[in-house]
């Protein structure tokens, strides 16, 4: 319905990036230096300067994004330009190197830059793909409403359990207190349900893994099948219905945490690597001018 960052204003920054690329390639094509193409020729210095300025400007996005009162374009426009010009940067810098690589600080800077660009591309991918999936997964209900609904199921489960023997109360309350998923970024990304539950087996209680409430549901099914009192069986059936409901609610919630984590995780790579790149860039430039 609205424009994506790639389609922003008739892809104006794509055209700008293409222009930068074409100009760089043409210059590289036309240029005929005395030595093999490298960063030290006149064109090499020019491309290097352009690349360095581009990197600084690209990194400045982190500042612009937080200058909330700024009237210099919109953040969306900046991001669109950030993406396209970030891609053009690869070409500019590649031509700057003259395709000379080695085991040195200069190539290290180039490698860092490539990692930043690749992580950025991954960011573009998740930004374009995940919002729609997130929205479809939740189906018009927001996260806190999902959590409220689960709490509501919990309250009703506790109430039913109070009318049943102690092991049922233990099942419900341990199932609630030992519900566990997404405690860390990593756990969210893996979308593992690490919940546990206390089940009575014979005369003892055992802590059992309870992903998707499966263990609890199995145990309830077992109890129900062996129950002779129809009133109790009905209560167990009701409890089991509530837990199935909870399972149905947990699935999109865990998935929601996973996808939200995907939308954030790449920044944990992109941003620190950018900081590293800025340092590497500085040492590259110092190395060139001080030690060459």
């Amino acid at each position, binding site marked *: *319905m*609205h*424009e*994506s*960052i790639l389609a*922003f204003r008739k892809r104006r920054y794509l055209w700008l990036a293409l222009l930068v690329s074409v100009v760089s390639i043409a210059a590289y094509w036309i240029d005929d230096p005395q030595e093999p193409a490298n960063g030290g020729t006149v064109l090499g210095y020019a491309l290097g300067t352009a690349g360095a300025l581009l990197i600084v400007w690209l990194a400045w996005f*982190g*500042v612009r*994004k*937080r*200058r*909330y*009162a700024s*009237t210099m374009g*919109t*953040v*969306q426009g*900046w*991001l669109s330009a950030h993406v396209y010009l970030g891609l053009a940067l690869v070409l500019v810098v590649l031509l700057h190197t003259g395709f000379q690589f080695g085991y040195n600080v200069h190539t290290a800077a180039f490698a860092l830059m490539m990692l930043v660009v690749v992580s950025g591309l991954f960011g573009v991918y*998740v*930004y374009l793909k*995940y*919002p*729609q999936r*997130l*929205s479809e997964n*939740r189906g*018009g*209900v*927001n*996260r*806190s409403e999902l959590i*409220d609904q689960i*709490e*509501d199921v919990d*309250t*009703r489960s*506790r*109430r039913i359990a109070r009318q049943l023997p102690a092991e049922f109360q233990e099942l419900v309350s341990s199932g609630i207190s030992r519900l566990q998923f997404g405690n860390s970024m990593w756990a969210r990304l893996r979308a593992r349900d690490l919940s546990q539950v206390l089940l009575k087996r014979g005369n003892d209680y055992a802590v059992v893994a309870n992903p998707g409430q499966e263990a609890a549901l199995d145990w309830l099914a077992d109890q129900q099948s062996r129950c002779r009192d129809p009133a109790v069986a009905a209560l167990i059936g009701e409890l089991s219905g509530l837990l199935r409901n909870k399972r149905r609610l947990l699935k999109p919630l865990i998935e929601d945490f996973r996808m*939200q984590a995907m*939308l954030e995780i790449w920044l944990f790579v992109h941003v620190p690597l950018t900081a590293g790149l800025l340092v590497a860039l500085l040492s590259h430039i110092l190395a060139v001018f001080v030690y060459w």
Partner: protein
Amino acid sequence: MSLELVIVGGGPAGLSAAAHAQQLGLSWLLLESGPAHANTIQRYQKGKHVMAEPAVVPLRSDLPFSAGTREAILGAWQQGIAPLSGNIRYSAEVASISGSHPEFTLTLADGESIGAKSIVLAIGLQGNPRKLGAPGEDASFVQYTLDDPDEYSDETIVIVGAGDAAIENAIALSRNNSVVIVNRRDEFARAKEGNLAQISRAIEGDSIKCFYNSSVASIDAAGSVILNTETGETRINCDRLIARLGAIPPRHFVESCGIGFPSDDPTTLPELSNKYESNVPGLYVIGALGGYPLIKQAMNQGYEVAEFIAGKDIQPADHGILESMFAGLPFKLGVDETLALIRRRAPLFTDVNGLVLRELVLSSNLLMPKKGEEIFRKNDYTNSFMTIVEGEVDVETDSGKLIRLTQGQFFGEMSLLSGRRRAATVRAATSCVILESPRRDIIRLMNSYEAVRRNIDEHFIVRTLRAGLAPDAPADELLAIAGTAEIRSFRSGDVLFNEGDGADGLHLIRSGSVSVSRRIGGRDIVTSYVAAGNYVGEMGLVGQASRSATVRATVATESIFLKADVFMQMLERNDGLRERVQEIVRERLSENLRMEAQPEAGDLISFLMQQGLGEATDVLLIDETLCIGCDNCEKACAETHGGTSRLDRAAGPSYAQVHVPTSCRHCEDPHCMKDCPPDAIRRAPNGEVYVQDSCIGCGNCERNCPYGVIQMASGKEQAPNLLSWILTGRGAAPGKRQPLADDGEGKKAVKCDMCKDLSGGPACVRACPTGAALRMSPSEFVKLSKRVN
């Protein structure tokens, strides 16, 4: 023995009257039904900062008052009235007032009677709390208010009531006490949604025990209460019983004293002279009950009323303000003469009571535009009401024709009534003097005076007909039509007419908005949305004899209904009208065809209307296909508005990947404006509804907003320098600033102001990295729904 003066009510107005009566040497007595002075203020939360608005009016009282904490103010009054305490009686409820000046008799609830020459009613609007009505209702452990729930712990507390106050008390007390709530019905139907969810959860989770369909039979002074429950009588031993049964509005009592009100509308104020005397000689009304809800005004009136009763004639405290307001006028008259001149020249104000007119002028502006100067421009969002005191103005109509209005006439009623933008530009045709009155005061005037309402309504109809249907019709023909037109009101969701009904007339939508839907394949498909200023029902009149669609109010709506035969006559008499109507019918038919082919688009519009967006003027929507959940919109809002975000992105419903976050939609007729004591909520010419600094933090707007977009917030710590935060991480991250512990200013209402003071427009939209946040008006919803598919 008869006293010279009995004051009923020990709030700011009553206390100030008492202090000055003492000063003047009158014999007086103050009767307060509650156990302490200033009960309304006693009930404020601890440490609440009380403001001293309006700042321009000086305080005139023998008691001190300045902005400060609740405790400081109550303490200062306590000290001020200490020497008078012999003449103040607490827990003395007046049951009735009889007799006449100078021989009034006040009868107290306990049967005692007191004689008085004059009486001042300063009882406010809160009313006395409704009692239990069961034996033992005044037992020592029974209370009708709760100041601080944290004062009690490990008690068994019975709460009687099912409203918000009862629920909030029960939930707060249940943290440290064992709480039982007694509800007369089988559900909590009157409660706000949030409270309902909380109490239901608490009852289900057994943290609160509830007796439904139960009432208090009696109270045993030894510390127990007997309930009538569904299963018979139950005795509960308790440490405390708190009854929250609402208050008895004071109007009935006031009327029983013989004081007249100009209309039945609950917002109407009693008729008073400019000495605060009611239609019953010797019976005076001051403070909130007289229409002055602010503390300082009430205290001033207490002082003045004592002067009047002592036979002195002083100028009201606002005299100086009016004097300077009138100083620049060409009339060169005194305050009272100028007021008389305004009344003489403007027929609308002929019947309006002097004190009310004075208050109206006081809250108004006097404009003095030169010839040719613009007074307001078409499509401005202002909604003030203009009365021409001197001179003439021209209204520029769409057809380019000028309509001349002369001295005594008024304009601006279109925006006033519909809440929409200005319908036309108005310019001064000569040098003018114009009284510009705030919307709130004119609405109150219309509710109080039937004649004023009728006059404004008639002009509204004539001018709407002229603008929308018959620009060339002579005024007397339109006036005759206006006489036959009816104003019909609809609540949100009400049907104006159903598909298939007989076509009996035309509705001009005057305020609110409607949706048009047709039944296709067994389901209602919304085909269009019609905003105020347009009409519906014309199709049945020019073509078919029955209605071709169902029209429903999307929000509270008022329409001007023209009967079919009247409309047909208009069609006959006015050239070109038939063609104009047919053109609109043709457009609507083709729009219908298009929408019928896309039922999803209609569903999206229905969804948006269900969110109350029919009354929006500018709403923040989020395209979920683009939103990455980074909350940069909230951070931008917080960082450009002192640290508190006025929008909650994640909250709110979604449909067809359009998300409606919790954020102000700048309603046409804002609910938040309805009951703002200092009139601090205003609408800027571009439509932004914003809160001014004069906010006193009362929280009325927060309660009145049905969309939960107003918060009470205190100041936040300063934002750190951005670069130093990025480089060193010191200070709070953007959007995460912490509230200041105590900035002494108290909480004030904060809401979206659409970044009206920032160049470049709303920060939330400009800060969205993916372009998911967008702002639009309801008229663009149809366009939006097309793009969804």
